[in-house]
């Protein structure tokens, strides 16, 4: 499934990132294959979403989260 499908409270593992202009930036920020990500509650309107990764919190738009393949843990 994609990161967009993951709901708040879920912990997932990153499998791959689709090619996009954001890909390298996301990877530099620590979103690489094998990394564990915890989904935090989203913004009140549902978008953007927030994740806890490598001991910090990052928010990204659902459209970009859709390009990240993850597996449930």
């Amino acid at each position, binding site marked *: 499934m994609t990161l967009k499908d993951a709901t708040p409270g879920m912990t997932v593992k990153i499998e791959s990132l689709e090619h996009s202009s954001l890909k*390298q930036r996301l990877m*530099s920020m620590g979103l690489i294959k094998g990394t564990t990500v915890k989904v935090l509650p989203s913004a*009140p309107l549902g978008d*953007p979403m*927030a994740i806890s990764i490598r*001991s910090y919190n990052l*928010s*990204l738009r659902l459209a970009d989260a859709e390009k990240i393949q993850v597996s449930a843990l």
Partner: protein
Amino acid sequence: MATLSVALTGNPNTGKSTIFNELTGARQKIGNWPGVTVDKKVGYTRHNDRAISVIDLPGTYSINARSPEEKIVIDYLLEEKPDVVVDVVDASNLSRNLFLTIQFLEYGIPVIIDLNMMDEAKKRGFKINTKILEQQFGMPVVETVGRSSKSIKNLLGVFTDTVMSNYHHSSLIEDHIAKVQEIAANNKNKEQVEEEIIALRYALIDQIIAKSVITTDVGASTSEKIDRIFANGFLALPLLLLLIYAVFEITFTWIGQPMADGLKDLMSDSISPWMQASLVSLGVADWLKSLIVDGIIAGVGSVLTFVPLIFTLFFCLSFLDGTGYMARVAFIMDPIMRRAGLTGKGVMPLIMGFGCGVPAIMGARALDSEKDRMISILITPFLTCGAKLPIMALFAAMFFPENATNVVFCMYIVGVVMAIIMAKILNITTFKDEESTFLLELPPYRMPDMKTVLLETWDKGKGYLVKAGTIILAMSVVIWFLSNYNFTGPTEDMSESFMASIGAGMASIFAFQGFSSWEAGAAIVTGILAKESVISTIGILYGVADISSEAEEAVNTASQLMGTSMGASFTALSALSFMVFSQLYTPCVTAMGTIKKETGKWKWVAFAATYTFATAWVVSLLVYQIGRLLGFE
């Protein structure tokens, strides 16, 4: 001994700027890196009789030359080769922070690893063994708690000429660098290479952290708990609106206005009469006296009364920014902003636009993409800045006495609505094919460092003071001259002055808007120099010489003005039309100068100047003509 050069680097949100401010205090200068709109912060300090220069390089997550900030950092370090490079690391967030550290080492740049925010790391359950960390990297590791002067002294103690030469890459790092070079050599596909290297770096980081950090689970952090109310739930948006309302209340009602009143009283009760009296006793010529008192003091004085408002607004915004709340504002507002053709991160710069357009235009630097930056810059002039407020307040008090506050509020709305419409148009036309991106770190909530907040407030607000001292001063002289002279010399009757001719020329295009008097035209022309002048020009030309350009005073002045020819040359409808025009037309020269600085191109200045004028002309025309059709006059 030569000055020791120190460079501060690191991720954003690591307290790097707090350390810079603690090290250099008021002995710092903020300029620009050549050719780009990125702040260049340089400061000085002394320690043990040694002069130390400190440069605060832009915070970056990596150095891949993908953004101007990243390029500045790596170019500076490679070309200037400072004596000491400090990599400020957020100790409560080691993993991502060390990514940059490793990149520096790959470039052969030795760094002092400054573990900052050690107190927060402890709270988050991280126990870091700095000795092991030092061994793993082969680089010195220092612990600091940003605001503590003891740890700053500690840090200063490490700054010596030889500190870097005592350290060499550990074998762990050497191996890593060798692997990186191998990957780069064996693969032609640059992207693939970069991605493999990124994975390699994090693998190394995981290894290092496993050896040097003991983690205890402390459950959800306090910040996450606060966020459940302020960033996630249904209360988030109402709370945000409440906070913004509070900022405006504090600025305009509680602090700003009383201070402004005090200043104004000082000007009119003490300074102005004193100046008059001194000039009389010095036997100064009448024209010079008039120039100084009616021209300069009135003109500059009107601007100075704004200064408390501006500084209070920026203080509040800087304070909120320092707590980390501004990131939440962007987080919550992003989808709403996107509907309007903008981006969540753009909220703060635009809010600043309600104080003064200049820092608002500069604030667009914080936005991620070129398109977001340009659109924000171009729509800022539509907002009701502090200088436009008295225009609205005065006309509303004069022509809509029953509904003055509502009318003024409507003007704010007009500005916001036009800004949104323009943003959408720009999205579909000029910037159609460009992308808007959004990646935002949500830092933990913190108590802001007051030194940093005050320095930032000063930095953003001082531009306004400079404007008062230069442009407004010069312009007050010019307006005074143009209104009191014509080709035959000094003139008693202003309607025969230069200003009258210029005003009449401008006013001729406003036949359909209902305000084609030469006085209105003159006010519009001077308003391009500074919006405050619209009111002072009107005051001078309609004969209320000491018209105060403060909102609250408007009611008193209103009754004075109604009795003059102004009451006769405007009707309620044409006054409304004039207000709309003033709200939307060409930004002041200071704002235009800022647009040139931020965009680097005159074409954008020309575009901003003309499209705002055209929009203002059309909208004010619609207001007037539709109003007449509906029977208002």
